[in-house]
């Protein structure tokens, strides 16, 4: 069939060019569209086309607005308008007419009208509201075609706010006798689920009915909804696992009508959908996985025909097998399957094979070994896509031994690559690998230089930043540091002597910083030489003014000696009259400091990178100035939030964008570029605001929290953060000479034996052995980012004045945590033999711990309380128990004797607040974990109780928490501690919301070690509803009025009313008030207004109106998603009542 199509189609282009007239005539003899199209194809230039189309549009415009145009003609006009729009011309005048056509035409005209609407408008277009009525009418039509059309358009686009208006009608269609209508209705509901899940959450039982529909098509359609719902919440649908398996078995067994076959494969779309659902259900769940194994096996067996569609199914099977709980027999089969993909001569299959491998090597790196020769071939493949995917695979198997080869390959690719998106991605990966596995200084600096010159100005800014940070903080030994810096200086000087004009700006900035900071290390290099080189940069046209200011700062650090000063003076003259104020300021600084050596030595001390910077954050030296100004009548200082509030009250401006900007920009000036222009300008800009973002006065450590947010691309930093510490571990350099590498290779007996081969073949073999070194069963490969037990050359020193004891604690800490983490993350025996003595992993807490400094050391953990009233919640906060109401039902384990008395371990400062019930998280033979949350004014405190139920003391406990929706920060340095036998350790975290979601979840891991024995770890997760973060917001009705108009995100819904009392509205609102802690502002007749906030500063307003026995609720907030989530909880609260 397909061959026929292809042949016919191949024959046709000639028809198009030679015989276009007659061909077109045959198709549409007289139509105006035909004329238009023919007219356009005859034209030769773009300009002529434009003229013709514009003329056409003018005539269309004239006709559509004429009252005499019939609907028939209108339809024809619309088709022409669609065509013009497709060519890229503006036809917005016709949109309204398209809607009119959909409204008034007969069925066929209507169809074109709907088509035009769906092509012209998108979900947010305001004209779409006009369509709602038409859709409503058509849904009720007796003409099936009209119903179909309405459902089709609903499934494509529908204004979110109007869903409730048509939802009942769509639901009704689920019972329609025609299966096509049922199926379209299901897909329309799927669309609703995607754009507004809480609007359809009350009809889940209807989805279940659709799943059981007698028509396989309707059932298949409902799977789309289920896939989505199960992806969001796999726990809720475990009971359906067996049903899905049965369906899949029937499909695979060929029980469906022949209609559904595609190239004699039974319903492949359905199969793949089911496989995807099953992999979500079986993920991390052994018991569910066991139900799935058999059908997977059968699917693999049945998919034999050599056709794309069977390969599609196989690929999905393999993905499923590697996602669910592993079973060795199936894994073997899947591995064989991947082999077939990789070895296939078809490009598409090869590509997918490589993709599957990247996915699989995380669990089984040996599989990559099996296919090493194919991988090498793919590495030189002419198709860039294949090459790119191969590099991705190599990235996953990189270790200290093969890093040079792999990075070389990546850089090779980068040099020819033109796509920015790929460059950004790959450059990041190279930088990561270089930092993690660099074998020596020269290599590291050279690689980073290539990264900077290739990555240029598109790469992520954190790459140069963290490189500089690394240089400035130094590593293990002073001597090593010196060598590294010296090498950097030397190589940069030679770069500048070459052709600096070709280097990207970012690289120039890095170069000038390094030269400014470290060029004194080089003995034969004179400051004046460097200054001259830098001055040359200033003269180049291509240099941006940002770079210029970096250069000027570097010069300021360097200018000394007669020659140097004269160069500096020259530069000053040019730039002290620059139009750019920043440059002018730098030039001034340079001028003053170059003349005053003493001052310069004080302001810019040499090698200051290692010293923590003392910041007088209270800016006390300005006190005199301030009091003078005040005396002279200046307005007193107001902190930003106060200013904003006033602004909001007076002008009702939106508060959103300003909230965080100042603290972030402060933290963005990391210590590394402490003396960079960025910092200087930022801090001078900030000086007025200091009291607000000051560190505690006179503290000697730098505050580091917040740094993560600025520097991190997600996922990237978490791998990088661990490098932060363990300064005191010895580093045997993992440098390997080629001969040593050869030795390593010889140990790979499983390398496929090949017969003696000609030269190119041998080269490949050699490449293979250098690429795949270290992947054998006894070598240490760890592919999961966080726990890298391999040797790491570049380790950062712990910063700040950490006391020796603290430092040693960190080390032992990392010793404990690493192997256990790794054990836990990897399913099988990858690592057991590979734990080397140099470990360098820390937890995120490490940083926060450092930042908290000694001040927080006398924190509040381990507080033993015996007061009787600890458990009592504060009466002022309404309904302590109700906080728990929406929680996953807390169940007390009978064999947990400590369950009740945990309350007494609640930290003292939290005991007065209302807290949720203490829920058990997980337990094993030695540890029992429980947690509860406590509502504080501006955050939610999560308290984790670790009960040591074993007979021996645990010395080191490390707790790591992470969450997608929440910001988790440790309240005190309690994250690391020990627990005596049969006693409880308490950790406290403060949670704030990053982005609202109906339920939020914190996942965590406890790593611990007994004095004797191996390290262990336990994982857990803690789920809580968003209501824990909701606080009442007290506002007056007037304030409410102004706020209401400002908020952009809203949602509306009808809720059930509690009508058993005298005043249904007041009763209902009281229930909401009690359960969700809302503040009822006022009730006026049939309307009520309610306000609350998400923690401190994210308000949400609610407007309720009694209408025909239901409560119409309208929620508004400046925060996206918040209204939807809150609506969900309101609904729940009222249902539970």
């Amino acid at each position, binding site marked *: 069939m*397909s061959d026929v*199509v292809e042949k*016919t*189609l191949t024959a*046709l*282009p000639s*028809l*198009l060019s030679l015989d276009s007239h007659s*061909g*077109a005539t045959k*198709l*549409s003899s007289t*139509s105006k*569209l*035909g004329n238009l*199209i023919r007219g356009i194809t005859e034209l030769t230039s773009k300009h002529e086309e434009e003229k013709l189309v514009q003329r056409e549009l003018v005539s269309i415009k004239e006709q559509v607005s004429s009252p005499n145009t019939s609907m028939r003609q209108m339809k024809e006009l619309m088709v022409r308008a669609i065509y013009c729009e*497709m*060519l*890229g011309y503006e036809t917005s005048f016709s949109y309204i007419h398209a809607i009119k056509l959909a409204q008034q035409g007969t069925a*066929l005209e209507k169809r*074109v009208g709907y*088509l035009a609407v769906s*092509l012209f408008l*998108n979900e*947010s277009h305001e004209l779409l509201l006009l369509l709602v009525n038409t859709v409503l009418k058509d849904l009720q039509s007796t003409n099936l*075609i009209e119903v*179909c059309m309405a459902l089709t358009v609903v499934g*494509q*686009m529908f204004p979110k706010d109007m869903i409730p208006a048509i939802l009942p009608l769509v639901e009704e269609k689920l019972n329609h006798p025609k299966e*096509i209508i049922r*199926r*379209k209705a299901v*897909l329309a509901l*799927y669309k609703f689920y995607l754009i507004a899940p809480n609007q359809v959450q009350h009809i889940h039982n209807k989805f279940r009915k659709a799943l059981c529909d007698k028509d396989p*098509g309707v059932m298949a*359609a409902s799977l*789309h909804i289920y896939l989505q719902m199960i992806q969001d919440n796999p726990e809720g649908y475990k009971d359906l696992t067996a049903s899905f398996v049965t369906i899949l078995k029937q499909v695979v067994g060929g029980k469906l009508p022949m*209609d*559904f076959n*595609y190239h004699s494969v039974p*319903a*492949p779309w*359905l199969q793949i959908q089911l496989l*995807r659902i099953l992999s979500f259900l079986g993920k991390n769940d052994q018991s569910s996985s066991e139900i799935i194994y058999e059908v997977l096996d059968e699917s693999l067996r049945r998919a034999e025909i050599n056709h*794309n*569609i069977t*390969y*599609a199914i196989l690929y*999905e099977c393999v993905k499923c097998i590697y996602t669910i709980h592993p079973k060795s027999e199936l894994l073997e089969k899947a591995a064989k399957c991947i082999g077939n993909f990789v070895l296939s001569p078809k*490009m*598409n299959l*090869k*590509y*997918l094979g490589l993709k599957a491998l990247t996915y699989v090597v995380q669990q089984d790196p040996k599989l990559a070994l099996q296919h090493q020769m194919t991988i090498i071939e793919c590495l030189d493949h*002419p*198709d860039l*896509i294949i090459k*790119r995917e191969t590099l991705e695979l190599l990235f996953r198997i990189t270790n200290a031994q093969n890093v040079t080869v792999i990075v070389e390959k990546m850089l090779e690719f980068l040099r020819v690559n033109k796509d920015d*998106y*790929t460059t950004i991605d790959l450059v990041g990966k190279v930088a990561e690998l270089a930092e993690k596995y660099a074998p020596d200084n020269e290599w590291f600096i050279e690689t980073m230089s290539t990264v900077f010159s290739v990555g240029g100005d598109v790469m992520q800014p954190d790459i140069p930043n963290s490189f500089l940070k690394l240089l400035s903080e130094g590593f293990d030994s002073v001597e090593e540091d010196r060598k590294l810096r010296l090498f950097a200086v030397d190589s940069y000087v030679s770069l500048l002597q070459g052709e600096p004009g070709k280097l990207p700006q970012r690289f120039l900035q890095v170069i000038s910083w390094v030269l400014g900071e470290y060029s004194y290390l080089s003995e034969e290099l004179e400051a004046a030489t460097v200054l001259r080189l830098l001055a040359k940069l200033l003269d180049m046209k291509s240099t941006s003014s940002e770079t210029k200011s970096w250069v000027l700062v570097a010069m300021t650090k360097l200018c000394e000696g007669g020659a140097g000063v004269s160069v500096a003076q020259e530069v000053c003259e040019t730039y002290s009259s620059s139009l750019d104020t920043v440059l002018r300021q730098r030039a001034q600084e340079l001028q003053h400091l170059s003349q005053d050596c003493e001052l310069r030595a004080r302001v810019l001390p040499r090698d200051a990178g290692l010293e923590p910077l003392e910041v007088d954050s209270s800016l006390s030296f300005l006190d005199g100035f301030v009091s003078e100004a005040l005396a002279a009548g200046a307005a007193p200082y107001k902190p930003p939030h106060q200013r904003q509030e006033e602004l909001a009250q007076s002008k009702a401006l939106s508060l959103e964008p300003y909230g965080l900007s100042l603290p972030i920009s402060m933290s963005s000036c990391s210590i590394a570029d402490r003396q960079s222009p960025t910092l200087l300008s930022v801090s001078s800009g900030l000086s007025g605001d200091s009291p607000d973002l000051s560190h505690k006065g006179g503290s000697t450590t730098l505050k580091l929290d917040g740094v993560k947010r600025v520097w991190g691309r997600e996922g990237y930093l978490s791998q990088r953060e661990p490098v932060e510490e363990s300064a005191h571990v010895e580093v045997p350099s993992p440098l390997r000479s080629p001969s040593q590498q050869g030795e390593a290779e010889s140990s790979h007996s499983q390398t496929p034996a090949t017969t003696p081969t000609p030269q190119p073949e041998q080269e490949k073999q050699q490449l293979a052995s250098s690429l795949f070194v270290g992947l054998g069963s006894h070598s240490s490969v760890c592919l999961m980012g966080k726990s890298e037990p391999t040797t790491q050359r570049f380790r950062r020193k712990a910063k700040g004045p950490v006391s020796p004891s603290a430092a040693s604690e960190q080390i032992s800490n990392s010793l404990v945590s690493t192997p256990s983490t790794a054990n836990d993350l990897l399913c099988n025996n990858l690592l057991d033999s590979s734990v080397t003595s140099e470990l360098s992993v820390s937890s995120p807490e490490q940083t926060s711990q450092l930042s908290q400094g000694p001040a927080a050391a006398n924190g509040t953990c381990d507080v033993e309380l015996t007061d009787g009233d600890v458990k009592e919640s504060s009466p002022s906060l309404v309904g302590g128990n109700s906080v728990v109401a929406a929680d996953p039902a807390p169940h007390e384990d009978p064999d947990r004797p400590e369950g009740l008395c945990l309350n007494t371990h609640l930290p003292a400062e939290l005991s007065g607040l209302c807290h949720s019930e203490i829920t058990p998280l997980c337990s094993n033979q030695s540890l029992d974990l429980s947690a509860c949350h406590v509502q504080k004014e501006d955050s939610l405190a999560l308290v984790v109780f670790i009960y040591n139920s074993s007979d021996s003391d645990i010395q080191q406990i490390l707790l790591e928490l992470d969450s997608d929706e929440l910001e988790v920060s440790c309240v005190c340095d309690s994250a690391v501690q020990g627990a005596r036998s049969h006693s409880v350790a308490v950790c406290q975290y403060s949670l704030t919301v990053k982005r609202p979601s109906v339920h939020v979840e914190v996942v965590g891991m406890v790593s611990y070690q007994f004095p004797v024995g191996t390290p262990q770890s336990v994982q857990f997760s803690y789920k809580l509803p968003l209501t824990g973060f909701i606080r009442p917001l007290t506002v007056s009705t007037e304030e409410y009025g102004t706020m209401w108009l400002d908020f952009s995100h809203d949602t509306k819904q009808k809720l059930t009313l509690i009508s058993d009392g005298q005043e249904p509205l007041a009763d209902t609102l009281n229930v909401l008030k009690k359960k969700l802690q809302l503040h009822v502002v006022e009730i006026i007749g049939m309307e009520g207004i309610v306000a609350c906030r998400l923690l401190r500063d994210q308000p949400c307003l609610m407007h309720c109106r009694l209408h025909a026995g239901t409560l119409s609720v309208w929620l508004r907030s400046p925060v996206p998603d918040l209204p939807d989530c809150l609506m969900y909880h309101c609904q729940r609260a009222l249902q539970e009542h």
Partner: protein
Amino acid sequence: MMRFLLLFSRQGKLRLQKWFTPVTDREKKKVIRDVTMLVLARPPRSCNFLHWRDLKVVYKRYASLYFCTGLENQDNELLTLEVLHRYVELLDKYFGNVCELDIIFNFEKAYFILDEFLMGGEVLETSKVAVSVSVEEADTLQETMEEYMSKPAY
């Protein structure tokens, strides 16, 4: 889920566009330009899958027409290739030996067929018979005789 479907000629002329998620006009133009260039630059007999930003692009050439879709990350590329093929089969069945001209001159019909086949970026009807039946039904029930005659003869 499919994000978009584009049909364009070897010369890069757009023949049909369908967007399954809301996209602004500017963004649409950018996607069309980028993806068209990307696909047209591919040498023959190379892999049918590409990356564009965070999307996977799957394309296939049928004679002078390129069929091209943008997918989300978890979608199955091979299956999508078959979706494209099935669409071509459907067009072929409707027009009878479909060619680019059929799609140019009757693009609204091509859209209708697509609407019966895909809905919201997911396959609505996997049975080939059912799709053509529902398209035919809609056509014959409603078309006047004249329109019926102007339909391509097969």
